[in-house]
Structure formats: structure tokens, C-alpha cells
């Protein structure tokens, strides 16, 4: 990762996670929840918020403790820290809504092994000051949530004809006669939509880059 070579500017730390190093579309991290929970917009939202919370809190703690944790046991320490916050989120969601908890299934607990969080702890938080680590975590978290929502909106719209189903704000998009494409709610739909969206974002990024170099040369 080139960004570690020279200390990045503060704003860049935040923006990177959204676009240039988007954890899902660019780094292809955390694919397991991305494919599994994105069949409903509300799931994407809950997953994104939970993962962001865990990411921010564990980045903060890791960054605060970075001078005290011996490097031989650092991974074990990070995992314990991350697992603590994941369990907190797990209880919190159970307390908020059991239906939401059921539809997220095992994926809340699996945030522990989400490579985005351990990756950020190891690659960034453990070598930067707490404010920067938190900023990076927020950026990555929002980038992750954004990617989940990108998939979720398409999958729920096509697979069920709605947005925000199972919430009080459910919107029916195409009327009652719409034939839902159930494949989109099922796992294959996750792969199809993810593949096509990675294609789209790569194309968009290349295009923007070309425009940027063209502008610099001019």
C-alpha cells in the first residue's frame, strides 16, 4: 500500500476509503458479508453501521495502545479488541430488533474476521495517531456501507420490487404487477450484481483518471 510511505494528508485519509481505496470495489475485502447480506437495503444499512462502529472503535483503541502492545502478540490483541466491540453490537441489535438480528444471521458475529477491520487495524491504526486512525476508519466504514447499499438497492429493487422492505418506510417501486426476479435475492444474484458493479466502477475510475491526466498535460 503506497499510502503508508509518506504520511497522507488528513482529508485524504478520510476520502481514500470512499473512492480510491474503497474496501469492496477496489480492495475486494469483506466479500463474505457483501455477498450474503445485501439482499435487503435495511440489512445493508444495519451491516454497514455495525461494521463502521466496530471499525471506528477498534481503530481508536488499537491506535491508543499502539505503543504498549508488544508486536508478537499484536494480532491476538487486535482480535480480542475487535471481538469485544462485535459482541457489543451483537447484543445491541438483539435488543433493537430480533427480526433484523435473524436476517443478518451469523454475519454480525463474523464481523470479527472481516478482513477490512483487521486490515485497517494492522495496516493503518497501529502506526498512526488516534485522530487519523479514527478518520481513516470512518472513511473506510462509509465506503463499505456505500458499497453494500449499491448492491442492496439493485438487488432489492429487482428481486422484490421494493426499497427498504421490512421497515415502516417500505416503498413499492414498480407496482403490484411486477414479477420479482427472485434470483437477485438469492446468492447468485449477489455475485452477478457485484461483478457488474465492479466492472462499472473500474470503468468509471479509469475514465476519470484519463480525464485527470489529460487535464494535467493540457
Amino acid at each position, binding site marked *: *500500500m503506497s499510502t*503508508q510511505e509518506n504520511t497522507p494528508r488528513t482529508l485524504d485519509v478520510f476520502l481514500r476509503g470512499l473512492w480510491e481505496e474503497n474496501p469492496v470495489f477496489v480492495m475486494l475485502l469483506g466479500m463474505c458479508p457483501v455477498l450474503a447480506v445485501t439482499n435487503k437495503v435495511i440489512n445493508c444499512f444495519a451491516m454497514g453501521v455495525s461494521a463502521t462502529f466496530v471499525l471506528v472503535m477498534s481503530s481508536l483503541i488499537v491506535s491508543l*495502545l*499502539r*505503543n*504498549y*502492545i*508488544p*508486536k*508478537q*502478540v*499484536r494480532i*491476538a*490483541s487486535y482480535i*480480542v*479488541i475487535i*471481538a*469485544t466491540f462485535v*459482541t*457489543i453490537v451483537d*447484543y*445491541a441489535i*438483539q*435488543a433493537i*430488533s*430480533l427480526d433484523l438480528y435473524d436476517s443478518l444471521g451469523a454475519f454480525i458475529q463474523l464481523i470479527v474476521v472481516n478482513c477490512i477491520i483487521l486490515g485497517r487495524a494492522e*495496516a493503518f491504526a*497501529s*502506526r498512526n495517531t488516534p485522530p487519523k486512525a479514527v478518520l481513516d476508519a470512518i472513511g473506510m466504514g462509509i465506503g463499505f456501507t456505500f458499497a453494500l447499499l449499491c448492491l442492496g438497492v439493485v438487488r432489492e429493487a429487482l*428481486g*422484490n420490487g421494493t426499497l427498504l422492505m421490512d421497515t415502516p418506510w417500505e416503498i413499492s417501486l414498480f407496482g403490484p404487477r411486477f414479477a*420479482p426476479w*427472485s434470483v437477485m*435475492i*438469492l446468492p447468485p444474484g449477489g455475485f452477478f450484481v457485484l461483478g457488474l458493479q465492479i466492472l462499472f466502477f473500474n470503468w468509471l475510475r479509469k475514465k476519470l483518471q484519463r480525464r485527470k491526466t489529460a487535464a494535467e498535460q493540457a
Partner: protein
Amino acid sequence: MTTANHAAAQIPTPQPTGSLAMIGTLAGIAFVSGVLLALVYEGTYDRIQQNQQARTRAAVLDILPGVVSQQVFEASAPGPDGQPVTQEFFAGYDASGALVGVAIEASDSGGYGGEIRVIYGYLPDKQEITGMKVLLSRETPGLGDRISTDAAFQANFAGMQLALDPDSKQPVHSLTYVKPGEADKPTDVEGISGATISSQAVTRAVRASTERMLPVVHDMLDELRRGSQ
């Protein structure tokens, strides 16, 4: 990813660390984590319990019309291998405290996506099933999950007469799965075309549970009637 050199340069403890320091750090983190989790667990325990109770209560109230309070009972009935298995079920009472009916959970593992768990209501006085509600299923959206959304399939179970034999207390006619449009007995369950496997699994679940549990429930009727006092 960074090289090993790079990593070592960044972490400000280049000297080998003693085991004691490592154990100490891990133990410290684990201790703080444990305390934190205990606090969160205590803080959310009541809410989670409330949520779970609200959920079963909603299911029971849904399946037994006119019920205002409910109580959990246990019954022991022979399982598939002949050994007695204890199962919980719910008895529902109306405002005057009289027994309305029971709600029993049933499950079958032969669904398209694995286990299907349903709850059904039974009125011992009328010998009638009030209805069926799917509690858990992983059936295909738009196809197998019609067991919980298809009104015609749900109607199979609503008001189904299930007379018990006075001696053996077994249902006179067991639930039978038939193709759509072919039901001629109240205990015939018309399947959903295109969702045969899922609707068969639901039928099997309810049939097995009625054969197993209803005789026991009938033997317990006095206890159930007393239950609300």
C-alpha cells in the same frame, strides 16, 4: 502490504519483549474486554428477553383468536425413535381466564432449504386447528416461501376439523398432502403448485406433531384449564 523491515521500523519496541509483558498485555486487554461485555450483557438482557417473549406472544395471539394471556406448559410424548421427548407448548386463555386453545410448534427438516418450523393453534373443545404460521424457513423467495404468504395454502389449516378418536386419542384422519384442487376431506392439505416440496414439508410437520402431541394435550386438559388460576 509493507515489508517486514518497514513494519519493524514503525513499531517502537524493537527489542525482544519478555513473555511476561506479552502475557500482561493480553491479560489486561482480555480483562477490560470481559468487564465491558459483562456490563453490556447486563444492560441489554432485559430488552432481549422482552423481545423474545413479545415475539412468541405475538405468534400465539395471532394463531389463537381471542386470547389475552398465555402460559407455557411442558408435555412428554414419544419421539420418532419411541423415546419420550419433552416439548414446550403454549396454552392461551381469554379475558375470563378460560382455556381457549393451545399453540404447538412443529418442524420438519425436509424443506427445500432445510428446516421449516411452524406453529399451529388447536382448540381442544372444537377439535379444530385454527391456523398455521411459519416461524422459520429458508425456502426460495417467490417459490417455496409461498407457504407463509399463499392465502389458499394458509386457508387449508384455518378451521381444519381434526377429530380425535375417543379411545386412542389419535386423529381419526391424519393430515394428507394432495395436489392443488384435489382436497375432499377437511384434513386434506392442498399443496402449492411449484412449491411441492415446501408445502409437503409443512404438511408433514403438522401431521407428525398432531399425532404426537394432541393425545398428550388431551390428557392434560384439566391441568391446562386450571393453568390460568
